[in-house]
């Protein structure tokens, strides 16, 4: 039993923190809210140059071959500054799916560019329902010679307009809830038969409804074996979810620090508001939850690295980290008083992301249903 970081993990944390402090202060998150693409290409390239996009990818694809614990270390730091980037969709989910499901040729062709930052690949799994798994997928892919033709509607596709490609999950066979029959397709978001409808989100990030209306995908861009995508995707999704949780814990830590500092400085009734027990108790409970969420995240990451059964712990981690982050942003903003709700204050950046990320990649309720399946068995009848 040992929760210490290794030298290497500590070094990654230190580098990331100091790099992001100069290259990605929260003003970047704010600026990207009104930008076209939703992320800074320049920052993205620097992240790639630091080796972050390839952190968990194999060395022979140009990656660093690190594990989920290291990924969590990095994602926490990205979260502390609310770094806006397609890191999770492109490097972790789409890149991970290509690595897990793709043929040797596809990996060689696609991964180096994903890892070097040259290609941004968005990830399209969810549709017009609340699932974050195979049950979500109704979109169809119909064989047409070697190629496939895609029809359906994807939801919550992050960075789709700025992406070079979108990795779309569609069905070559079967129907929900079956996890068999799924396949992965690289789609050009500028294809004439793709329509991107921007979604207006509370975080003001770039998300889209993506309508696929007879989109033709050539054989080269059908990733892996059609019908068998889910077995590869499942682990990739768990990795992405844990990375998002680490991001949320980092962000929760940061808003808590901001609120604690503010409470020490802001004077009312002739004393710092941090001397009032009501304020102290909010902050004390919140930091306890954040430390518990932090330990849970690393436990989940370690579980994935060890190849142990992981569905239950991933589900618990997403529920808890999401709820904890949301609460930390809510209380953290409240402690700032009226100014906390000023649009130009960092608190408002955190408050808006708190609720959104809690509901992203499967809401708390979605994951609670997964936990119930694990603990009580599925609902019969």
């Amino acid at each position, binding site marked *: *039993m*040992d*929760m*210490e*970081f*290794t030298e290497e*993990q500590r070094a990654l944390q230190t580098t990331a923190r100091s790099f992001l402090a100069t290259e990605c202060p929260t003003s970047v998150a704010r600026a990207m809210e009104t930008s076209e693409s939703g992320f800074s290409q320049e920052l993205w390239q620097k992240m790639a140059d630091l080796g972050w996009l390839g952190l968990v990818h194999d060395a022979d694809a140009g990656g660093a071959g690190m594990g989920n*614990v290291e990924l969590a270390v990095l994602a926490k730091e990205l979260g502390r500054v609310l770094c806006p980037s397609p890191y999770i969709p492109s490097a972790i989910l789409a890149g991970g799916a290509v690595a897990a499901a793709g043929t040797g040729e596809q990996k060689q062709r696609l991964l180096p560019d994903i890892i070097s930052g040259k290609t941004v690949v968005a990830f399209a799994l969810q549709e017009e329902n609340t699932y974050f798994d195979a049950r979500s997928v109704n979109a169809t892919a119909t064989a047409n010679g070697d190629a496939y033709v895609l029809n359906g509607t994807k939801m919550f596709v992050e960075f789709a307009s700025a992406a070079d490609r979108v990795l779309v999950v569609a069905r070559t066979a079967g129907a929900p809830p079956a996890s068999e029959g799924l396949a992965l397709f690289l789609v050009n978001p500028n294809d004439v038969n793709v329509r991107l409808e921007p979604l207006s989100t509370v975080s003001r990030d770039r998300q889209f409804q993506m309508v696929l209306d007879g989109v033709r995908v050539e054989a080269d861009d059908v990733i892996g074996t059609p019908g068998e995508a889910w077995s590869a995707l499942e682990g990739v999704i768990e990795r992405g979810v844990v990375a998002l949780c680490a991001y949320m814990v980092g962000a929760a830590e940061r808003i808590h620090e901001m609120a*604690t500092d503010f*409470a*020490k400085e802001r004077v009312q009734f002739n*004393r*710092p508001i*941090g*001397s*009032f*027990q009501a*304020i*102290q*108790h909010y*902050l*004390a*409970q919140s*930091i*306890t*939850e954040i*430390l*518990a*969420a932090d*330990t*849970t995240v*690393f*436990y989940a990451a*370690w*579980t994935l690295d060890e190849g142990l059964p992981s569905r239950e*712990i991933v*589900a*618990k981690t997403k*529920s*808890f980290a999401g*709820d904890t982050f949301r609460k930390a942003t809510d209380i953290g903003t409240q402690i700032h008083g009226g100014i906390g709700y000023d649009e130009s204050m960092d608190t408002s950046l955190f408050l808006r992301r708190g609720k959104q990320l809690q509901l992203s990649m499967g809401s708390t*309720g979605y*994951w*609670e*249903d*997964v*936990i*119930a399946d694990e*603990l*009580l*068995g599925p*609902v*019969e*009848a």
Partner: protein
Amino acid sequence: MDFRFSEEEEAFRKDVQEFIAEEMTDEIRSKWLGGLLDTPVRQEFVTKMSKRGWLAMGFPEEYGGSGKSMPLAQYILNDELHKAQAPIVGKNLGVVVNTLLHHGSDQLKQEFIPRILRNEIQWALAYTEPEAGSDLANMQMRAELDGDEYVLNGTKRFITSAHFADYMWTGVRTDPDAAKHQGISLVIIDVPTEGMTLSPMNTIIGEQTNDVFFDNVRVPKERLVGELNQGWRYITEALTYERFAMTSFAPTIRKFKRLIEWVKTTEMNGKPMKDDPVVRRKIAHLAVLVEAGRMIDLRCVCEAVRPDYVPVNEAAMNKMWGGIVETVLTDEALDIMGPYGYLWHNGGHAPMDGDMVDDYLWAGHQRVAAAGVDLSKNIIARRYLGLPAS
């Protein structure tokens, strides 16, 4: 980073589990968190553990200890004992032995530690008074030196185990003129001693604690623990050991697992309880809170084994979260049962024979005793976050 227990630790856990499987009975099982050693069978159970050397682990050989030990041995032992609702070993070891080892005279060490490690003597911890609860440093019970003896006058409240203990580990005021934290000392008193009277108080779940009245009780001055007027420091140091030993998350995990079993095997309104979507969400939410508690517990353990480090903050977090989760768990569990949730023991219809009702009634005690939720939050706010004094 490695969340696994070592092979050696797992082997020890297996030993403990086997011991419990062989020796544990319904008579030993206790509702009281950590168990009370109030009956011969319960004491004998602990004596059997002492014969295996499990009380002596990690303590110096010159006082009957086993010398070196795995740092996590005591945690593992208590974890398993808590799961089985058996008496744990932390109460005496954590508070009395640790304090004597660090601060006691050689005479006191020789006199008490070996007998504690053999489980020959039982203890009550007597700090609380009518006017000194959370504000423990406000204790007023006077100890005045008269020749070679201290003379004690005052009242102690909620003194658990006093009705069967051999000794009382007692906080007394030795300097009424000093600042309140600086006039307190610790003394060991024989039970009974002339002038001491006990008045039982029955708790809401039927277990006993006691008021103890002191009327010119005389205690030899050799029974002073450590230095005069340094008692507050010793007490707070030891409270952290207690908070940690007593707040293992294992009892909450055990209750939660039992609830899951009940939900899985129960039909309500003609349908399996486990298929009810509201019940499923509640169980899942509880599972998350319990998992978070397990993580704080493990974090606490990792900190506690660091040499010469007392995990004050982590213990407070553990204590706080334990109180909160125990409350939510027991409340939600009874809710799920509907009107059957208020049925208590021996009526035949009560789910889990009414045990969850006890747990519900007792959850508040965890929020209050030995620095409960509010006081733990004060500790975290002041010590961990560095917020200014209120």
